[in-house]
C-alpha cells in the first residue's frame, strides 16, 4: 500500500486498466508527452506508446465523438477533456449520441466510453476554469456521472467506469488533485457505480454531498463531535442516476438534512436530492431541507475575495450545520 494523492490514484487506475485490457486507450489534449496539463497521464506515453496514449487535436466534439465511435467498435476509450468548462462543445455528442446509443438501437449497439474532466474551483481558475458542469448532464438517462471524493474512491470508481458497458462522465475536482492523500491499495479493486457511501455515522443531522465537499464536511464533523453535535455524512459518489435508497435512509436517520454542492444552487444535483427526500421522507423530517451551494451567478470570479465568497469551505459548512442543529 502506498500513499497516493487523488490525481496519482487516477493515473494508477488508468495505468492498471491499460495494462490488463488492450482495448483501453486514452486520448485528449496534451495527454501524450506532456502527460496532461494536470499530469493525470504522467508516464503513460512512455509506457504504452503513441498508439494508446494519443494527443487529440483541440476539438472537444471530436474528442467525444471519435471516442464514441471507438467505443461502438468495441474499444474502451478514455477521453480526457482538459477542463470540464470546455466540455460544452461536446455536449451534443454526449447527450444526443453517447447517452442514446443503446436505447435508440434497441440494445444492439453500446457505448462504453469514459469521459474524464477536471472540474471545480478554488484554484484561481476564474469563470472558465472553475465550473461545476454536472447538472447539465444529470437529467440524461443513458449517462452515468461519477464524482469521487477521495484517492481510494478515485481509483476504484475510475476502474469501474472504464469497465462499465455504458458511457460514464467522470468528474475530478481540481482542488482535490493534490490536496487529498491517503493509502491506496496496490491491488485491483473497483467500487460499484450507482452506490452512495455513508462516510460517517451520526445521529443529530445528515449531510449529503459529493466531491471535495465531502472532505470539508468530514473535517467539520470531527470538530463538532467534541461539542456533541453528531453528524451523519453520505457521499453520493455517483450523482446520476442517484442512489435513492441511500438518500432516503440517510435522511430518515436524523430528520435534519443539509445538502451541499459547489455548483450554483438552483437546478443543481442537490435540487433533485431535495425532491427525493420531500417525496419519501416528509413525516421523518424535523426541519426544512437545507441547501448550501454556490450563489446563482454565472461562474466563479478570479479575484480571491470573490472566489472565496463563491466557494464552499469548512467555515460555511460549520455555520450551516450549527444553524440546522439548533432548529
Amino acid at each position, binding site marked *: 500500500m502506498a500513499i497516493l494523492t487523488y490525481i496519482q490514484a487516477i493515473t494508477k487506475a488508468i495505468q492498471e486498466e491499460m495494462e490488463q485490457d488492450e482495448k483501453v*486507450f486514452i486520448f485528449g489534449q496534451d495527454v501524450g508527452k506532456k502527460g496532461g496539463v494536470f499530469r493525470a497521464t504522467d508516464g503513460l506515453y512512455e509506457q504504452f506508446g503513441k*498508439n*494508446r496514449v*494519443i494527443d*487529440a*487535436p483541440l*476539438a472537444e*466534439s*471530436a474528442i*467525444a*465523438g*471519435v*471516442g*464514441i*465511435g*471507438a*467505443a*461502438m*467498435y*468495441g*474499444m474502451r*476509450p478514455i477521453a480526457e477533456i482538459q477542463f470540464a468548462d470546455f466540455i460544452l*462543445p461536446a455536449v*451534443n*455528442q454526449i447527450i*444526443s*449520441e453517447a447517452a*442514446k*446509443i*443503446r*436505447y*435508440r*438501437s*434497441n*440494445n*444492439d*449497439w*453500446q457505448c462504453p466510453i469514459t469521459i474524464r474532466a477536471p472540474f471545480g474551483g478554488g484554484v484561481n481558475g476564474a469563470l472558465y476554469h472553475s465550473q461545476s458542469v454536472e447538472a447539465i448532464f444529470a437529467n440524461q*438517462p*443513458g449517462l*452515468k456521472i461519477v464524482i469521487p471524493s477521495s484517492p481510494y474512491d478515485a481509483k476504484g470508481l475510475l476502474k469501474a467506469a472504464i469497465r*462499465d*458497458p*455504458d458511457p460514464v462522465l467522470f468528474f475530478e475536482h481540481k482542488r482535490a488533485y493534490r490536496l487529498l492523500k491517503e493509502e491506496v491499495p496496490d491491488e485491483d479493486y473497483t467500487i460499484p457505480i*450507482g452506490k452512495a457511501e455513508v462516510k460517517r455515522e451520526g445521529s443529530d443531522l445528515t449531510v449529503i454531498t459529493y466531491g471535495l465537499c465531502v472532505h470539508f464536511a468530514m473535517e467539520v464533523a470531527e470538530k463538532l463531535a467534541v461539542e456533541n453535535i453528531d453528524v451523519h455524512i453520505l457521499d453520493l459518489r455517483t450523482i446520476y*442516476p442517484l442512489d435513492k435508497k441511500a438518500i432516503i435512509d440517510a435522511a430518515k436517520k436524523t430528520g435534519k438534512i443539509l445538502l451541499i454542492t459547489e455548483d450554483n444552487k438552483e437546478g443543481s444535483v442537490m435540487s433533485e436530492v431535495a425532491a427525493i427526500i420531500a417525496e419519501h421522507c416528509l413525516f421523518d423530517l424535523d426541519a426544512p431541507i437545507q441547501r448550501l451551494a454556490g450563489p446563482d451567478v454565472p461562474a466563479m470570479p478570479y479575484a480571491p475575495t470573490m472566489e472565496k465568497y463563491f466557494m464552499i469551505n469548512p467555515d460555511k459548512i460549520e455555520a450551516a450545520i450549527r444553524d440546522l442543529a439548533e432548529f
Partner: protein
Amino acid sequence: MVNNRHRSLGLTDEQVVNMYRYMLLARKIDERMWLLNRAGKIPFVVSCQGHEAAQVGAAFALNRDVDYIAPYYRDLGVVLVFGMTAKDIMLSGFAKAEDPNSGGRQMPGHFGSKEKRILTGSSPVATQVPHAVGVALAGQIEQKEFVSFVTLGEGSTNQGDFHEGLNFAGVHKLPVITMVENNGYAISVPSDQQLACERVSDRAQGYGMPGYTVDGTDPLAVYEVVKKAREDALAGKGPSLIEAMTYRLTAHSSDDDDRVYRSQAIIDEEKQKDPLILFAKYLRDSGVLTSEHEAMLEKEIDGIVDEATDYAEQAAFAQPEDALKYVYEEQMGW
C-alpha cells in the same frame, strides 16, 4: 464491345445488373413509403430518390464483410447493399417491434445494425462523422484491415462535427471515406447559400486529404472513386473526401412542400437526370440488360416490396412499457 466502362473497372455484367437491381429496389421501397405516408399509414418518409446511383455505386466499392458504414437518413441504397432487406426497412417505416434498426424507436431513415456494421444513427446532422473516424482509429490501434465510410448532405458539411472529424482523420491518416451527397439543397436553402466555397470537395484541402467531385447520377463513376479511396486508405495514405453530385427528386421529406422554394421547371429538369433511367439506358446500350430481364426485375422487386409491406403492416408494435428498456445494460441491474 461498345460502352464497356464497367468491364474496364473490373465489374462483371452480372455485377452491374446487380447494382441496377439494388437501385431499383431502393427506389421502389421509397416510392411505396410515400404511398403509405399519403394514405395515412406511416407518419414519415425521407427519401433516397435521385441518390441511388451514388449510394449503390459507393457501397459496391466497399467490402461488405469488413468495412463499417455510418450512413445518413437518405442512404437506403447503401444499407440495402450492406444487407438490410425490404422487410427490415418496412418494419422501420411502420415502427414495429421487429425493426432491426431500432425496434420501432426511431423514425425511418435512422439506420443501424451491429451485425452488418452499420453504426446506429441519430437525427442531429453530421454527428456520425466523428463516429466513423473513431471506428477507423480503433481499427488502426488494432491493426485491422478495413475502412469506415460515412455520408452526409452538403448542408451538413457546415457542422463543426464534419470539420472536427475530417481534421482528426487527416491528422492521424485514418482509413475514413467521407462521401457528401450534394443534392443542391438543405431542405429549402440552395447550396450557394450554404457553402462559401465552390465545391464541397474544396474543403478537403484544409484537412490534408484529397477531395473529389464526381457525377452522383452515375454509379460507375462513384464506384471508381470510392474504390480508389478505399485502396488509398488501406495503403496507409489516409482519408478521402468525395462529393457526389445528385438531385433530390422529392421534397426534403414527407413534411416538406418543395413547390414553395423551387419551380416546377427545375423539378422537371432534374427528373431528366434520374439515375435509374440513365443507368438502365447504359445497361441496355451495352447489351447487358434486355427488356425481358428488366421486366422480370421489376416484377420480382414489386413482389418483394408487396410482401415486405404486408408483413410489416401486420407485425406487432412494441409493448408500451418496452419504452423503459435498454437505458443501460440490464444485467447490471439498472
